[in-house]
């Protein structure tokens, strides 16, 4: 535990968010869905941490847990320690979900930007009104002043003709503009932490690039930390300083962004990177594909959650004991038995991992045909 904490982030640098052993369970008729099974990560001031994972890994639940906006059915345990403006380090899970303290934090100190800007705004009110709602709630109740602040923010995010746009309704905005407005609303109170949940997935490529650049600029400007959630490896490479890869409710690898692409250690990360064709490079004959599909986090068997689909699994070890997230090399942590034992990086890069896969793949293909059902 000591080791892990020390390694996760240099203690001298100030942490904005420290998530420890976060577990989220959802009670269903069929049993308990262990959606998040013990997640640890932290973010420093001004840093962008990417949280990468596919559907079913629990990243959305994790991010919503930070703000306490998960459904009642979710039982959350663990610690989410946040460096508040006035009360120092506070465990957000201690605060009442609908209480005054958490509402002080939400929108003002921690903000969130969502995936679909088109539905994130109410169609009944003007954009200006909705951005202003945030300003008036957290900064000042003075009508004139708050409008000024909101307009200022709208200009900052690059909405041309801000005065006119202030009085327009969401349906009059394009997707990209709406996302800018959403960012304006999120950043108008100068939060310490911005949680961006797939903010560019629903946008066109050229608009996506604009938004990513905007976010980077604003981050530098406001010295803000960003928790960037996505499944797109390209965006991660462009935006993030450090990357945490999530699978089936656990973080399986954490590393600085360069390391994760140059030297992915966890088989899942290797698989993910191998699955994507890097634009501007020669075509591969075949993309590396991870066999099978993500299982339901219900009544999981013992051992590593990735066992069924892993191309480097060790029977007798991986399906018995769950691997711990340990440091493999400087700042690079992975939770994998096949990588453990003091291994300082597998020495396998993606290309090798992909080519190593074919022998397994042939067998896997057969098995895959069964499993993929």
């Amino acid at each position, binding site marked *: 535990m000591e080791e892990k904490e020390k390694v996760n982030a240099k203690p001298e640098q100030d942490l904005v968010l420290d998530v420890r052993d976060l577990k989220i369970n959802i009670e269903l008729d069929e049993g308990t869905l262990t959606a998040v099974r013990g997640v640890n990560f932290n973010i420093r001031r001004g840093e962008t941490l990417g949280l990468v994972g*596919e*559907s079913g890994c629990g990243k959305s639940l994790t991010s919503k847990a930070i703000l306490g906006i998960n459904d009642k059915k979710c039982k959350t345990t663990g610690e989410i320690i946040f460096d508040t403006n006035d009360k120092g380090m506070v465990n957000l899970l201690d605060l009442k979900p609908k209480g005054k303290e958490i509402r002080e934090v939400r929108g003002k100190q921690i903000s969130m930007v969502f995936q679909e800007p088109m539905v994130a705004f109410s169609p009944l009110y003007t954009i200006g009104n909705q951005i202003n709602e945030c300003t008036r709630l957290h900064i000042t109740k003075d009508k004139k002043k708050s409008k000024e602040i909101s307009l200022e923010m709208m200009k900052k995010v690059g909405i041309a003709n801000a005065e006119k746009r202030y009085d327009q309704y969401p349906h009059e905005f*394009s*997707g*990209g*503009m709406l996302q800018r407005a959403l960012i304006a609303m999120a950043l108008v109170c100068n939060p310490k932490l911005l949680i961006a949940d797939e903010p560019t997935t629903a946008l*066109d*490529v*050229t*608009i*996506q*690039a*604009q938004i*990513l*650049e905007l976010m980077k600029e604003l981050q530098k400007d406001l010295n803000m930390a960003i928790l960037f959630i996505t*499944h*797109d*490896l*390209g*965006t*991660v*490479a*462009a935006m993030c300083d450090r990357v945490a890869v999530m699978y089936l409710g656990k973080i399986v690898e954490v590393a600085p*962004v*360069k390391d994760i*692409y140059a030297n992915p250690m966890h088989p899942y990360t290797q*698989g*993910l*990177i*191998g*699955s*994507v*064709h*890097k*634009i*501007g*490079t*020669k*075509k*591969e004959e*075949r*993309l*590396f*594909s*991870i*066999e099978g*599909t*993500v299982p339901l986090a219900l009544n999981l068997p013992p051992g590593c959650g990735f066992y069924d689909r892993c191309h480097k699994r060790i029977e007798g070890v991986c399906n018995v004991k769950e691997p711990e997230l340990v440091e493999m090399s400087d700042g690079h942590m992975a939770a994998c038995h096949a990588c453990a034992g003091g291994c300082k990086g597998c020495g396998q890069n993606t290309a090798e991992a992909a080519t190593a896969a074919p022998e397994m793949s042939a067998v896997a293909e057969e098995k*895959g*045909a*069964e499993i*993929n*059902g």
Partner: protein
Amino acid sequence: MAKKENAKKILEINHLSKDFPSKKVCVHAVSDVSFEVNEGETIGIVGESGCGKTTMGRCVVRAIEATAGEVKYYPAEGEPVNFLTIDKAKMKELRKDIQMIFQNPYSSLDPRMTVVDIIKEPLQANFPKMGKAEMEEKVMDMAAKVGLNVSYLKRYPHAFSGGQRQRIGIARALVLKPRVIVCDEAVSALDVSIQAQVINLLKDLQKDMNLTYIFISHDLSVVEHISDKVGVMYLGKMVEYAETEELFSRPRHPYTEALMSAVPVADPEVKMDRIPLAGEIPNPANPPSGCYFHTRCRYCREKCKECAPEYREVEPGHFVACHFAEELELRGFNYDEEAKDGNK
């Protein structure tokens, strides 16, 4: 491309247009699109929202009726016909040759039919005389081929995940043994790792059944990986069309250049050096004058505002719709390891 020498034309799309008229405005979803497809090839069609690629794909399979233009289809035997204007009888005969795979695995399967029935339906519609046993056999074959477990076929779609449903959609499209398949964003709604599975599957099937794909997508990385030739569309028009490597390394249209530079590369070493595009995608109901792209093009000159550029062949096999295609030095990707400092 080894296929070049014995390339047999299978489709010729000429001046295809689709308008959606309404009381106030007429939206020209597809304007005058032309390109050729050879047998066994994969043509990637890319573009952003409003470019008309999905509409064009639907016109080609006649899921919707085009306003103008022809889709010349070269059947295995017989004379080429215009797929859009053939009569009912001929349509019955040829419909099975051109099929489609849809984008959304959740809405493209009828939730009230079992998987067996879904895959069987095209057979029932096209081969009414086929015996039940024969049909079942064909269905099982196809299901196994796409990687579905045949013992699960009696289930309903809700029992399957997104990737598996997409496989069902593929099986349904292939059960008629078509020659051309239009894949309309077939992998866009899937997770990355499942995308890879389905892309590999599509490639395998192409080799196995000698299929021709028109692969519509907004994801340039996927298109680069899977296509032999790529067409770029903007606001209903085809602005550039060339072989994949040629297009990605030596683009001739400013939009292509900007589009490629905007794609975030899955490699942190590569700095994002985006070519900024001014403004937003114009409203398709009210396109700009002259060249549609002139409002955002950084190489825009007077001529561009006034007259629409011609879609012409500037090099063998490389088509562009830009007045200054020959003059502009545009930036593409460098495929060679040793930086041959050509365009970057």
